[in-house]
Each structure stands twice: as C-alpha cells, then as structure tokens.
C-alpha cells in the first residue's frame, strides 16, 4: 500500500507536434475523488486520453505511475487490465457490434476467470436497471443512434461491469438531463465505493453536489494552476475563471521577477 494509485509528475504532452499539456502534477490515492475543471480547450480531455494511452497524444516529458508502475509504457488494453477506466466525453459508435457482445468480450479480456453467460446477463441487467435504461440496450449496437444522455449512461453501465481501480470521467454530466445527473452520480458513488480513485472532469458544480470531491483542481493552458477543496468549485461557479487567471498571472509575474 506504499504507492499512491496514480502519480503524475511534470507531464508534458503534444498532439501533432503542438504542446498541449505543459507540466501537470497530480496525485490520486485510492478512494479519493478529484474534480478537474477548466475552460474549453484547457487540456482536460488531453490529460484523460493520455492517461488511457491514446496513440495520438505524445508524451514529451514527465512520468505517470500507476500503483508504482510506469503507466506510459503500457498499451491501451494493458492499462485497462491494470484497472484504468475512461468514461469518454464523446463515446464512439461501433456499428454492428452489440453492447452485450462487446462487454462480454471486454470482460473476458479483463478478468482472469470467466463469468458464466448467465452471471454476465444478470450483472448487465442489474447495471441497466441501476442506470434506468431498458435492457433492450444490450442488443443494440454500441452507441449507434444513442442519444447524448444514453451514451453517457452506457459509459457508467460499463464502469459498473468493469469495476476499475481508477475511473476517469470526462464530462459524464454534460448531455444528461436533471434526473440523469443524479442517477449517474449515485451509480458512480456506488461503483467507486471506498477504494476507487476518481478523476471527475466537469464544467458544472451541479454534479459535485452528488459526487463530493475531496479535491478540486483548475486547469489553465495545460497546467493545474490552482487546487483546493469543494469550496473552490463553488467559487468558480459564482465568479468564473477570470479572477483566477489574474491571480495566476500576477503570481507568474512575481515568479519571473524573483527568478
């Protein structure tokens, strides 16, 4: 239990040669909920995709340890097997592949001992019920023709089936209706339990009323410029980002003057 669940140190990431993340530091321990906020284009999804191992995101500096292991050396599927899960901001459709077939194959790869077909069906049924989705979704093609909110719910159905150690939720709340936010939140809390680490990316305080974060971080220009507790999210909701930027700007100036 000596290693934290996730340790990000001075992470720099570029896409097509363009630097996006410019030195991210973040540590997440088991059972901790971290909210990550920040303006559009500040690099939140980039961080999420990099942690999951998207091939287009090139790490140019820094390191990421998952339970003490070098995460950046692992293939995408190895990361999944290690316990990393990403709920996508924009889940993609896989035409012709049913949700049930997809999840069954996924669980086969993720788990050592195979679930029986019956166990699997029952478990899937439970998850659908918990997310208030009819189980007819099991035979639909993955995300094809799903409404925005349905896609988000399916991500959490998957999280429930997979039970990851680290769940990165990229704007799972956007696109959900008012009840949807509550339902999804309750389920995230249930699935995460005491041990799962959660990195919750969001623009709104609304979801944080249900999933109460231990830490709130603000990303600006590819860096986390401020961390705090729940009250920081509240403050952002009231005041927006400008004041933070100004403060950060002043700090930066000071630093430069000193250095």
């Amino acid at each position, binding site marked *: 239990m000596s290693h934290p669940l996730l340790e990000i140190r001075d992470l720099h990431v570029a896409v097509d040669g363009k630097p996006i993340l410019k030195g991210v530091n973040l540590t997440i321990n088991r059972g901790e909920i971290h909210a990550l906020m920040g303006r559009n284009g500040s690099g939140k999804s980039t961080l999420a995709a990099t942690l*999951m191992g998207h091939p287009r995101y090139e790490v140019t500096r820094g390191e990421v340890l998952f339970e003490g292991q070098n995460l950046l050396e692992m293939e995408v599927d190895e990361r999944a097997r290690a316990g990393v899960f990403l709920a996508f901001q924009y889940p993609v459709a896989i035409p*012709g592949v049913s949700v049930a077939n997809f999840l069954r194959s996924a669980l086969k*790869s993720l788990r050592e001992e195979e679930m029986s077909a019956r166990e699997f069906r029952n478990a899937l049924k439970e998850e659908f019920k918990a997310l208030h989705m009819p189980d007819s979704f099991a035979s639909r093609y993955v995300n094809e023709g799903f409404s925005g909110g349905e896609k988000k719910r399916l991500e959490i159905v998957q999280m429930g089936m*997979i039970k990851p150690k680290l769940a990165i939720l990229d704007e799972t709340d956007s696109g959900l209706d008012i009840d949807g936010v509550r339902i999804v939140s309750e389920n995230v809390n249930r699935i995460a339990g005491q041990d799962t680490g959660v990195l919750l990316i969001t623009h709104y305080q609304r979801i944080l009323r249900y999933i109460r974060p231990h830490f709130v971080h603000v990303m600006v220009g590819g860096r986390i410029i401020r961390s705090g507790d729940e009250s920081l999210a509240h403050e952002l909701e009231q005041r927006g980002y400008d004041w933070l930027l100004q403060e950060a700007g002043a700090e930066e100036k000071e630093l430069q003057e000193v250095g």
Partner: protein
Amino acid sequence: MSSPQSLLDVGTEYQYGFRDEIEYVYRAEKGLSRRVVEMISHMKGEPDWMREFRLRALEIFLKKPMPTWGNTRLLSEINFDEIYYYIKPADKQGRTWDEVPEQIKNTFEKLGIPEAERKFLAGVSAQYESEVVYHSIREDLERQGVIFMDMDSGLREYPDLVRRWFGKVIPPADNKFAALNSAVWSGGSFIYVPPGVHVEIPLQAYFRINAENMGQFERTLIIADEGSKVHYIEGCTAPIYSTDSLHSAVVELVALKGAHIRYTTVQNWSKNVYNLVTKRAVAYEDATVEWVDGNLGSKLTMKYPSVYMVGKGARGDILSVAFAGPGQHQDAGAKVIHAAPYTTSTVVSKSISKGGGRTTYRGLVQVDEGAVGVKCNVRCDALLLDEFSRSDTYPTMNVKEDDVRIEHEATVSKVGEEQLFYLMSRGLSEQEATTMIINGFFEPFAKELPLEYAVELNRLIALEMEGSVG
C-alpha cells in the same frame, strides 16, 4: 498501438487449401477447342440443340475480346490454353454419401457438408470438378413437386422446361465469360418450385475445385413458379496451387408472378482462383429476388448480380459484401433494371480491403421510360484497414423517367483510430478490437445467413485477422 505497416504481414491462413490425389474417371485434354466442346456434349449424351448452343457459344467466346475495363492486368494473365475444361471425378452420382468415392466424401466431410445437411438443409448438391457427385432432396419437397437436381440431369429429365429458359436470362453473347460457360458448362443446379409451394429451409449447393489448372463452369437455373418461395445457398472452396484456376459460372433466376427467390453465396475460393461469374434474375409482377453475395476468397472476382424487374410491383434486393486481402481484387457490385412501374430495389455493398487488397464497387441503376413510381436505394460502404489498400466506386445511373425516387450514398472509411481506442480502453487487444469492428461491419450480411454460416463467417474473419496486427 502498432503502426499500420504491421497489417501488411498478414498470416492469412486458408484452412480449405488441402488437396486430394484422385484418379479421375475422365479428364479432357488441356485447352479449348471445338473438339473438347463436342466431346463434353457427347459424353453427356445431350440433345442436338444443346450441342449447337455450345458450339455457337464457343464461336462467340473466341470472337469476343477480353473486357477492357476492370482489372485488365490480372485478366490478361489468364492462360486459356493451360486450363482443363472438363474433369469427370466419378462414374455416377451418389444419392447417399456412401455412394460417393471415399476420398471425395472425406473432402466434403472436412468441409462440414454432410453435417450441415443433417442439421438444417432441405436438399444438398455437391459438385467436385465438373460434375455433381452427390445429390439429395427431402422427400416431402419432392412429393410437392419441387425439382432440385444437377443441371445435366435437369436437361435430361425436363428438356422442355430447360429449353424454355436456358440461356434466355443470360444469352451467351452477354459477355465473354458467359459465352465461355455456355460452351463448356457442366454441373450446377436446376431448380423448379411449383406454384404456391414454399420451400422454407434452404437448398444448398457446394462447389469444390480440386485439380490444378481446373476450370469449373457450372450452370444454374432456378425457376420459381407463381407465388412460390425458395432459398438457395452456395458455397465454394479450392486447394492452394501456384498456378491459377478459373471458375466461371452462369446463374439464371426466374421469379414468376408473386414468387420469391433468395440466392445466397459464400464465396471462399483459394487465392489462386479467378472467379468470373454472371448472375442475373428476372422478376415478374410482384415477384421478389434477393441476392446475398459474400466474396471472401479468390484472386480476382468480377461479379455483378442483377435483377431485371419486368413486372409491375417487382422487387430486387442485393446485398454484397467483399473482403480483399493481399493480392486479391474483389470487383463486385450490382445491377438493378427497373423495366416496369412501381418496382423497388435496394443495393447494399460493403467491402473491406487490407494489406494491399483492392475492392471495387461497380453498379448500375437503370429506369426505363414508363417505369413510374420506381424507388431505388443504393448504399456502398468501404472500409480500408491500411494505407496500402484501395477501394473504388463506379456507379452508373441511367434513368429515363422523372417520377422516380433514387437515393445513392457511398462512404469510404478507415478503421477508426477512435473506434480502436475505445474498444482497447475496455481491455480488448488491438487484434480483438479490429476483428470486432470488422465483424460489426459485416453484421448486415451475417444477419442474413443461417446461423451456422454466420458463425463460420465470424470464424473466417477471426482467422484472417490472426497475426495481422501486432
């Protein structure tokens, strides 16, 4: 994730590539000549009109130039003088598998035909080289007057019916390879379904080429009388040789008023077979013809199943899927000819190319003058697995009527990086994820197959993908 280059090193294993050492009953000399054609007709004891038909077709074949479109490079590599045009594998046709020569029977066992027959088929025909070596049909169907036999027996036993339709849907002069088939045809299926009879479970024919440099020229004619219904499935495989074989079939379908024919093909020839096939159907008033055409194997396939809708309210549905790996070119498509009012058609074409493979969609939509109220929907989707592969679409529209509704949509996509990432983020390996995406892409085709075939198709795709990424 590995680079797309690795998709080039495909360990494509072809599991039906084994060959038999067979003592043939008769093998014609290599090459094509008047003598060979006359000999085939003579050995079969055919009526004069058929011998004349063959000889006329031979003239046409010799006169007609090779196609100047399509893959002319591969076409020019066919050496017509090196081909065996007729090989007779057995003395007589079996009605039980025990009557089939041991080795040939074993081959079909390996291909799973007798088992499929026991499980889910209403009738089976098995052709080996030039002749049908096994044939069966369920008694209840026979009692209802359903005819299902090899084409040669059909000609002998139902000369009038055959003469009325043979070569009428596809005349020998239609194209060079139809002419070739008309000259040297042997085997294939003859089916007649009497008015109002519904054959609910499929009839199947299986075609096997075994010899090197073999030419297989089966000829199939299906006549569905008024209000009847039939589903026919054909499958084909061949051993792997360093030299090429030629498969050039002609398939004619006649769907009379209100009849329904579904014709399913799972083509899985080895990659040294030229597959140049002409398939055409005529659909009379309110009749429906469905072509479900899957092309996985062969070196070069050129095949464009067609439906001529000649009666009011007729319908044609063509679903064509193709998979082209290294060295393969699947030039496939569909033709729908609306020659009568209120006829409808749908064409769905799906193709996957990988490791430098090529797929081509070639389609024709024709609406004749006076064919009002026509509806036609064409959709072509091509999926490229790497940068070395190629896909082209050549749609032709020939519409002479205003009061019609025609939709055409074509897409070419790459196996999405985003799709792969999504699936892999749930623990699937790159290979599993690719296979899953491809299976999904083929799902509309698999869904139309009997379950056993669909399972087989998925297995084939998994095999094709094995070792192809990594």
